[in-house]
């Protein structure tokens, strides 16, 4: 079992503090949902864990099995087992999807122990079938000209091929129609089990109808303010966030703009 521990995390972007002391612990074999109104720092959390160059961690720790994640470069974090399915994946012209995924897999293997081309192709074909992706997507340039839904599926394809210990899904459900959402959820559910943990960041309870979380956390004003089981998500869907604000005496003061 692996554990990702986030303690007292403070994160700023361009000198504006967005996360203000966030605590979260997640084990493999668990799915955590992080919910909350717009501008409470959910995507900032995802970017800070992965090491986005614009986000500065000013205080606190992130550890994976006791290893200090904050000291790692972005690629080292990936190799330590972290994966971020991004809200807005980059488009890389001239690099095919297939070549990229193979490079990513081989980056985790020793030189001389690269995945064989045949084995890779078999696995890629199988996974693309599973995600109901057109085979020609493998030879298209990475995310270039992909629709929003295709990009999200492509993130899940990479996730399934790379098989990280912890996946963070940054609003994987936004902009998806219901069929695409089901496919994405099918991918996540396939990954669930020993050796895989997941943080699903979302505005909407809808995703959680397909991916049942073990734990639900509510973020407001840069902190986790309430945690519970799946029933918490259902109550949020039915009643919104106001009751939490009232319960905890939170006032809408400095809601920040969510960063892309």
């Amino acid at each position, binding site marked *: 079992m692996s554990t990702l521990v986030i303690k007292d995390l403070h994160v700023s972007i361009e000198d504006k503090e967005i996360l203000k002391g966030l605590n979260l612990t997640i084990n493999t074999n668990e799915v955590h949902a992080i919910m909350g109104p717009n501008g409470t720092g959910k995507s900032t959390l995802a970017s800070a864990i992965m090491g*986005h160059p614009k986000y500065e961690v000013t205080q606190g720790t992130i550890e994976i099995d006791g290893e200090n994640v904050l000291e790692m470069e972005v690629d080292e974090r990936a190799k330590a087992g972290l994966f971020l399915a991004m809200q807005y*994946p*980059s488009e*890389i012209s001239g690099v095919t999807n297939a070549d*990229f995924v193979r490079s*990513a897999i081989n*980056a985790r293997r020793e030189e001389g122990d690269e995945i064989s081309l045949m084995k890779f192709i078999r696995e890629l074909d199988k996974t693309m079938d599973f995600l109901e992706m057109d085979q020609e997507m493998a030879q298209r340039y990475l995310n270039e000209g992909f629709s929003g839904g295709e990009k999200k599926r492509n993130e899940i394809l990479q996730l399934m091929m790379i098989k990280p210990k912890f996946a963070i899904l940054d609003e994987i459900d936004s902009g998806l129609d219901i069929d695409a959402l089901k496919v994405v959820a099918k991918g996540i559910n396939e990954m669930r089990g020993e050796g895989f943990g997941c943080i699903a960041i979302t505005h909407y309870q809808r995703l959680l109808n397909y991916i049942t979380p073990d734990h639900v956390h509510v973020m407001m004003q840069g902190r986790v303010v309430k945690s519970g089981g799946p029933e918490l998500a259902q109550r949020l869907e039915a009643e919104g966030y106001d009751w939490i604000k009232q319960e905890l005496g939170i006032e809408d003061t400095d809601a920040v703009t969510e960063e892309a």
Partner: protein
Amino acid sequence: MTVETKLALSATEVRSFSQSNNEPAWFGSLRAEAIEKAAELPMPTPDKTNITKWNFTEFPQHTVESAPFSSLDELSADLKEIIDIEGQENLYIQRNNTPAFLKISEELKAQGVIFTDILTAVREHSELVQKYFMTEAVKVDEHKLTAYHAALVNGGVFLYVPKNVVVEKPLQVVFLNDNADASLFNHVLVVADTNSAVTYVQTYVSTVEESNGQANLIEEVIALDNAQVTYGSVDVLAKGFTTYVNRRGHIKRDAKVDWALGLMNDSDTISESITHLIGDGSLANTKTVVVGRGEQKQNFTTEIRHWGKNSEGFILKHGVMKDSAQTIFNGIGKIEHGASKSNAEQESRVLMLSEGARGDANPILLIDEDDVMAGHAASVGRVDPIQLYYLMSRGLSKAEAERLVIHGFLAPVVTNLPIESVKNQLTKVIEGKVR
């Protein structure tokens, strides 16, 4: 090393060189007149690059003797990689100034295709060469360097595809430079007659550390009505050359040319590619990729000039600059009066890999007709940190992520080269240069 002074070859010497080659009289006269013009004509003036201090004229000797290859087994391992030894049916190898190997299939011969070195062609296909050699596309008296080239031509290729002949497989040419004293005045003349189609791919390979010579290269592509020419070139000339390369297309009615140029010289280089869309409905696609490194100074001018109605021209240029390399990219789309319904599009992008490198992209549209379409895009910038972040978030090292972005950036030409082995060669050259 003996260095000849400026234009040391006199008209008499040029004539006697011509005679020793058994060239027809017209070619001897063309050379002799050209050397006289070269003395008087001004230098070309590439926009935004000052070449007044560049040495384009001095060299150790006009021609060097090299041993031909009696079989492809004699080629070095590097050269063998560029050629599909088994599969390539039509191949010409020039070693410095010596025609070193020629293979042409019986099928092409029977169809009347001429594929041979330029000086043999001048002797054996005199009338045909005389009709097109520096008459329609490039003119002898454009400036000092075109005249100098005409006077001193010492290598190159003639390719003629007769009417209605479609050559299915690409023809391949390798210009090997393995003598540091060699100067290359290579002339490539491709004539695709009416309704014909051909794919020509050439590679320049220098194995010398540093050359003492000149490279003054002129390549002419004449596509007659409804002909289609695909022209690929990978240039890897060594440091030390002063390179002037002039590629010119002359495209007639409904004809089409596709250029895929991987310009990877380590020499200072002035490159000019101009395609004239003469006929109505003609089309040119010019794709160029460049990598500059070291102290290199380069100027790349790509122009498509529209004369025919409904003509279409597309220019794509991508350049990567590192170290202290300086490069100017001039892209010109010119639509002449009368070329209505034409379309001139261009895109120039420069990726800077180091602080000391300089790159300028200058898109220019000159339009003398109302009813046309035109567009341009240009950018100069660094590797996008967000792209790197994305790639690294999947476990790729920063170096590998950069490598992928750069390869992707140069892919438009790599993927368009029609010979797999040349494609691999370009990929390898890029790899070596951007590392």
